[in-house]
């Protein structure tokens, strides 16, 4: 057990943590904590249960905590602590009231000038001595490391996950428990903690199938940590997307919604000890064992999607299949080569959809007002999951769209509107660029719907045809004028005229 001085934490600030902290969508909050930040000890964790789910290629943690306001004043901000250095990897943090899941208004944001705190703001301040049950979920990117770091092509892959048996907290905790959910029972190593620490006098971890439990533990001071780690089999790729760019293009004339995704993937899994052997790979293809290589990506698209494509920097990837029927539309994309640990693969996929399924005209609005509902994130759906370091979604609205508003549940780090000039545009199309960091594929589709409302004046629709007509007329006029310019030197002879005509 060690106590970490908070002053030290402030110094080790991460660049990405700073990026996280750029959240400014909550305008009411403009008082920022001081740079070497220590959360005020206003709360006490009465009971804390922490679930770490390791079934996917990234840990998902759920923290159910009963908190009690021990300060004299009502409090509306709860500070959530993380182990140092991990704040930049935390993504998709959501908080809600466990007893009233419908209650909205909980916001979570990284605390500026600190490297280990998130601030969770309640919809209403919690009066003194009142209790509240918070359910906080988040996922940590790049938290799992393969151990051994190098394996043979057909070997099993083991992952190592280091955590603290005591949940990191800015407050004193009366009772807590950490549960691990592992994908298999093949767990060669798990830190054993002596029974003396356990409140019930049991030796940790207590195993039950694939779930390992540490705790319960008794009273712990704020900031208490108990390092522990687990190593388990996970012979699946650790697909890590360095960047995902999504373009969603709305065409009113064409009644089409075109989506394009550009992926830059890396497999964070164990690298190959000896170089890739095709013979081994082909031999193993017969019985298809689990592999740490990424062999296929499946994109379940919205029903009715059409014209799907899968290309990379050097052209079409011929190993893809697109099946579309009345019930489903699936793009099965195989990378050009199996992506083993440490290898990368970048590609683009795209498809078209009927705009009618996504766009609705608002009745009674001022002028022509529209609502567009599209998923913020789609991407492949893999059983083992995918983590995205950075997702940039760009919604390209028709030319002349004004009064753009958006709404989404996913935490964003930036949102800008701009112009994008393409396909004979005169002014450029209104685009909305939204950026989120540390997203996992849990947020696919419905969970992270992006609702955009905008106005499109009738005149804007006819801008392009008119501009094209004007351009063509100008071209004719210019060519007529040029064609009538006489460039001959001296007097024209009959022969010359004939010659020019024939040309």
């Amino acid at each position, binding site marked *: 057990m060690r106590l970490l001085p908070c002053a030290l934490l402030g110094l080790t600030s991460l660049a990405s943590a700073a990026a996280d902290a750029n959240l400014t969508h909550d305008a009411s909050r403009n008082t920022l904590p001081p740079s070497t930040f220590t959360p005020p000890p206003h709360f006490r964790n009465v009971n804390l249960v922490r679930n770490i789910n390791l079934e996917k290629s990234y840990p998902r943690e759920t923290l159910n905590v009963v908190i009690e306001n021990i300060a004299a004043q009502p409090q509306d901000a709860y500070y959530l602590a993380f182990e140092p250095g991990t704040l930049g990897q935390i993504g998709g943090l959501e908080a809600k009231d466990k007893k009233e899941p419908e209650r909205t208004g909980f916001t979570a944001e990284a605390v500026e000038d600190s490297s280990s705190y998130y601030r969770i703001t309640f919809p209403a301040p919690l009066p003194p001595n009142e209790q509240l049950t918070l359910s906080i979920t988040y996922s940590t990117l790049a938290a799992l490391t393969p151990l051994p770091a190098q394996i043979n092509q057909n070997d099993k892959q083991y992952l190592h996950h280091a955590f603290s048996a005591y949940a990191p907290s800015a407050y004193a905790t009366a009772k807590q428990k950490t549960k691990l959910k592992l994908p298999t029972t093949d767990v060669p190593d798990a830190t054993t903690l002596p029974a003396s620490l356990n409140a019930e006098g049991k030796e940790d971890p207590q195993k039950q199938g694939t779930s390992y439990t540490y705790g319960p533990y008794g009273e712990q001071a704020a900031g208490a940590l108990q390092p522990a780690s687990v190593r388990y089999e996970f012979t699946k790729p650790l697909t890590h997307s360095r960047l995902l760019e999504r373009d969603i293009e709305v065409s009113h004339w064409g009644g089409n919604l075109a989506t394009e995704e550009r992926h830059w993937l890396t497999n964070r899994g164990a690298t190959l000890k000896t170089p*890739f052997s095709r013979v081994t790979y082909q031999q193993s293809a017969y019985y298809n064992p689990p592999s740490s290589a990424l062999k296929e990506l499946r994109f379940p698209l919205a029903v009715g999607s059409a014209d799907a494509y899968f290309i990379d920097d*050097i*052209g079409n990837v011929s190993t893809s299949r697109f099946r579309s029927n009345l019930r489903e539309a699936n793009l099965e994309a195989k990378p050009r080569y199996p992506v083993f640990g440490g290898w990368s693969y970048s590609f683009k996929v795209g498809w078209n959809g009927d705009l009618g399924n996504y766009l609705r005209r608002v009745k009674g609005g001022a002028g022509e007002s529209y609502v567009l509902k599209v998923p913020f994130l789609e991407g492949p759906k893999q059983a083992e999951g995918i983590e995205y370091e950075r997702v940039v979604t760009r919604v390209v609205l028709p030319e002349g769209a004004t009064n753009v508003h958006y709404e989404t549940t996913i935490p964003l780090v930036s949102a800008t509107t701009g112009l994008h000039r393409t*396909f004979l545009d005169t002014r450029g199309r209104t685009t909305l660029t939204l950026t989120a960091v540390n997203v996992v594929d849990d947020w696919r589709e419905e969970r992270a719907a992006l609702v955009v409302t905008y106005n499109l004046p009738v005149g804007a629709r006819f801008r392009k045809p008119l501009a094209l007509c004007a351009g063509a007329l100008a071209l004719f006029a210019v060519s007529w004028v040029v064609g009538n310019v006489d460039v001959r030197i001296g007097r024209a002879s009959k022969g010359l005229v004939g010659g020019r005509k024939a*040309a």
Partner: protein
Amino acid sequence: MALTDSDNPASFFFKGETGRNTRGLLRLIILCTIAAAAVASRLFSVIRFESIIHEFDPWFNFRATKYLVQHGFYAFWDWFDDRTWHPLGRVTGGTLYPGLMVTSGSIYHLLRFLAMPIDIRNICVLLAPAFSGLTAFATYLFTSEMSESPSAGLLAAVFMGIAPGYISRSVAGSYDNEAIAIFLLVYTFYLWIKAVKVGSIMWGALTALFYGYMVSAWGGYVFITNLLPLHAFVLICMGRYSPRLYVSYTTWYALGTLASMQIPFVGFLPIRSSDHMAALGVFGLIQLVAFTEFVRYQLPTKQFQTLLRASVFLVFGGAFAGLVLLTLSGTIAPWSGRFYSLWDTGYAKIHIPIIASVSEHQPTAWPAFFFDLNMLIWLFPAGVYMCFRSLKDEQVFIVIYAVLASYFAGVMVRLMLTLTPVVCVAAAMALSQILDTFLVASSPEDNSTDTSSSKANGAPSTANGSANANAIKDKLAAAFSPDTLRSTKSPVVGIYSYLSKSLIAGAITAYLLLFVLHCTWVTSNAYSSPSVVLASKLPDGSQHIIDDYREAYYWLRQNTAPTAKVMAWWDYGYQIGGMADRPTLVDNNTWNNTHIATVGKAMSSREEVSYPIMRQHEVDYVLVVFGGLLGYSGDDINKFLWMVRIAEGIWPDEIKERDFFTSRGEYRVDDEATPTMRNSLMYKMSYYNYNALFPAGQATDRVRGSKLPAAGPELSTVEEAFTSENWIIRIYKVKDLDNLGRNHQEAGAFEKGNKRKKAGKRRGPRVLRVE
């Protein structure tokens, strides 16, 4: 065309001024359709595969275009490429013909300006088809200058549009210099003919301008550089010197030479290399002739002849001596090797194996002419013969062009390309003659119809008058104007019988249809394969794409260090540069024979010899192409002998071609392969681990059709890094030096647990350290 019924309300559109406009519009529509057909017939590969750059050279052009688009024109002009020819690098900006890249770069920026952000790859892929549409148009113009029949131009345009001889180099994705060069060639010729006919500086200057463009686009510009002077020379020799010729030739030569010298790669060649001396000589000659003409007007005949004789001998002797002296002293470069191989087809094989190793530099086989030109090849002589019937200045050009191009096309497969335009023009002239004669519905007496239609067709009237009219004109003139010469008066002859008319017309139609069928078939089957992507058929008839090249290149691109040097045979250099984006040792530019020979030596030597070479050249990966599993015959083992030959050219003591053949002179890869063969790095890398795919002793090479030795080769200095799905591309990583200072063979043996051989390794007596 023969609409006689004046009561017909539609006749309004076919008579008088309106008729001319109607015909003009019709012609325009036909030309647009031809251009569309030309473009469409080149899109097989895009439809069947995808929009992809084909083969080898286009990949370099594509890469250079991307560089141009990204870094701008000046950076492109000064481009020193350190990612090719490692470690020498290549002054790319100064050693390429920039016309192609600049053309597509301009199109790209123009479209950008119009807010049409089209991917540069698509522009490059579709550039050749687009320009072939323009070529069809240029051929129309060119032929219209040659023949007064209005149908000749259109026929030539459609022939040019779909002739396989031209399609072979201009399908979508074939992004090579020839893509735009043929258009420029034909258009320059058209402008030249126009200039000679009209004698105007403007046309001469336009010729020079397009000649300059041509120089910037293709090394084949030398063809124009020699053909135009030859035309002028022949005209002078025929006693057809005229001020028109003087004006057009001098304008073209002066401006065109200046224009061509703006290209860094050409530089001072136009005044220093033998290839360009003919143009200079004719330029001098035409000055002399002009001067003589001038003097002739001033002097009496007797004096003039003496003066002429003396001066001609003096000047000619002086010029020739000067040329010889300059060539000997080295100021004028002698003929280049490629040029020699045009005269002596065996030359390259002996002196420059690297030129001979390229399949498109081989002499043409006879069937290739029929394959590429089909019926045009037998119409071609007829067309040339028709040029003799009315031998005006422009017809002389066709004759010369036909003779020269036929010869060159016979010498080198690739030069079929320069033959195709003249074949199309000549064949169209012949065919239009036939059609004009046989496709007239009315009988020949009905002169009024023919005359009106032929007049109304507005055949371009030429500046040098209509002294020599063609056959139809002859008849009409004879029938019409009684005051012409008696020799041109001939009885009205023509085809009266509808049977013969319909027979001939039917036969010609059948031939034309067959021609279209043949062209489509050839294009579809022979010229539309990207060669980067291979297609095969699955048992159920569906198409299966073998994409090994891109698989391996993309693997290199994504999973190796950006500066990792890849050693491969030069054929793949441009593709590696374009698709894998990694530095290469040698590529298709082949400017440094020694460097290529070095790679050849590394491939054909034992590992102990190859490894130091690879270390010296900082090679990280070695890439070989192996078709044994799939039966893909264009692999490195089949190209291996060229590597050996080229290496032997530089190191005759170390590499000997003979060592790779068995005692019976066979080139084998099986048990009977020579030890040199079996120990060569290429052989080992090709077959390494290959027999693991087969039951013991059953490994078969499906290209060479031979059973491989039971024990596969062992590799110690390189290790397999990646092999593509069908084993076509195999990539090996060059091992670093051993940590313990052993050589790799020893290290490998130790790993395997073999006992180290002690025999012969005698150490000297132990010496105590004395200091």
